[in-house]
């Protein structure tokens, strides 16, 4: 029941933040943006990731936002909740950028045992603005997560905390809406 409520809350939060961002784009002269992207995470294993960031451009170069997504590591689904900051190199429709995510991978199930953990991403990429309201981004980066999960010890009388350090490369593709 609790798990369902958390999931529902996250979904509501996801869409409310997105609609809030889109509503305010007009008011704030397109300072607000939405970045929706998918990526392939590779390394020890291959997995996919989906992220939505709703952010604000402080000036021609700096932007920051809040993000949420869905991803999977070792058979467990996680909602990454994170802060995204982005630096765009040029004030041009076609510009390199770099960005950093910092946040927490929240497990979607097994809350009693799966504790989730810190996540972070560093990326460099290209942003291509195709109009006033729409653009594309593509990037490559490094993805890190530190996930904890308790397992009942096979020797039978206590718990083992299993810690996974996720080290993945990331290829991401996404759309920017203003």
């Amino acid at each position, binding site marked *: 029941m609790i798990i369902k409520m958390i999931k529902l809350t996250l979904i509501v939060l996801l869409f409310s933040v997105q609609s809030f961002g889109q509503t305010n784009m007009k008011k704030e002269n397109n300072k607000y943006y939405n970045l929706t992207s998918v990526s392939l995470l590779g390394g*020890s294993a291959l997995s996919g990731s989906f992220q939505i960031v709703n952010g604000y451009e402080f000036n021609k170069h700096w932007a920051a936002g809040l993000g949420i997504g869905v991803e999977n590591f070792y058979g467990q689904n996680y909602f990454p909740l994170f802060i995204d900051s982005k630096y765009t190199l040029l004030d041009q429709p076609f510009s390199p950028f770099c960005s950093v995510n910092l946040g927490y991978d929240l497990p979607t199930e097994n809350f009693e045992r799966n504790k989730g953990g810190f996540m972070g991403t560093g990326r460099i990429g290209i942003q291509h603005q195709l109009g006033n309201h729409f653009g594309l981004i593509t990037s490559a980066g490094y993805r890190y997560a530190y996930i904890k999960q308790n397992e009942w010890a096979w020797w039978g009388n206590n718990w083992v905390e299993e810690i996974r*350090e996720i080290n993945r490369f990331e290829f991401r593709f996404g759309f920017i809406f203003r």
Partner: protein
Amino acid sequence: MKNTAILLACALLIFSGCKDKTFQKYTANVPVYTDFDEFRSDLGTVKFETAKPITQKGNIYFKDNYLFIIDSYKGIHVVDNSNPSSPNNVGYYAVTGITGMAIENNYLYINSYIDLVVVDVSNINQPVEAGRVESVFETALPEHNPNYPIAEVDPSKGIITGWVVEEFVSETEPINGCFNCMWLTNENMGAVFDASSGSSSPSQGISGSITKFALLNSYLYIMNGNNLVPFDLSNPKEPSTTNTIPVWREVETLFSYNDHIFMGTTTGMLIYNTENRNQPEQIGAINHVNACDPVVVDGDYAYVTLRTGNPCSGQANQLDVIDVSSYSNPVLKQSFNLENPHGLGIINEHLFICDGSDGLKVFDAQNPEDCGNHLIKNFKNIQATDVILFGNIAMLIGDDGLYQYDISDLENINEISQLKFN
């Protein structure tokens, strides 16, 4: 194009380092190491000290009127038993890591964790180290907390002389949970090894039946984990070992008899001949249900006690009488129910069984296949563990003390002394 290729190559190089890591964090027995040289010059040498109070049971060993009680991992209590009616605790051999012993002539052979140590005990009050075989028992570890697994062990760091229970982070699995690791602990004695087996040569000492040392024809046989290790004692100060014989069972006890070694294992009794003393060869075996099972042999019969309990996952409490007239074909002749039998001994066709909380039981074994029906004496109120029979005396160790009995008249056995533990 060239730049793109270089860029891709660099990216691949960077990304190839992207490997996940998995750690396990758990509470474990973490090893405490002592430097090899430090151990062999101090903790692992025998030092004579004044008598200490005996606080708990241990393996017992008898030689030349002295009774030795092993204080597991710490030393040996020396008891002058020249007058069995009044045993006298006269000294203590302090040596770290000891769990088993054997004496041939004037040389005491003990394990001190990974080493076999030879001690000249010509003068009982002045033991002198006469030799040492280093690093022969590499699986020897101190007693650990069985509720937790053992963390990573690195033998190159030194000799493990203790454990600390603490949180441990490892990239690998713990080596075991050790609920049934007989090579690590023994429920009765808390030992890697036990004292040496019964023997008949006057040059050798005698121990109870719960043993992993066995002296036979100038060889000392020791169970090291699942390996039988023969030591040639031709030069008693410098035992030499060149061979190990894997035994694919959990061996608990060795008993040497008639040029053969009888092994009590958790799943049966094995018989090895020692025609080639350096390469004993299994010639017979008989299986039984899981149980701890010391064994003694007399004539054509082997007597095996099976008991329940943690270390052996035992399923039965009984005495098995096995016909070993053909060593290659042992045959179970009879089983008799008992309470919780531990060590045993046989003398003059009388079988002594330490039956746990039911005390010491003496059976007439003139007819071995019916001996279980001929209980002639039962000394209750003793948590009896093991017994040595020598001459007219039975020396029994229990949970709370050393008990001795006059057995000169086997039909009329009398207790003659108690040496209570503090």
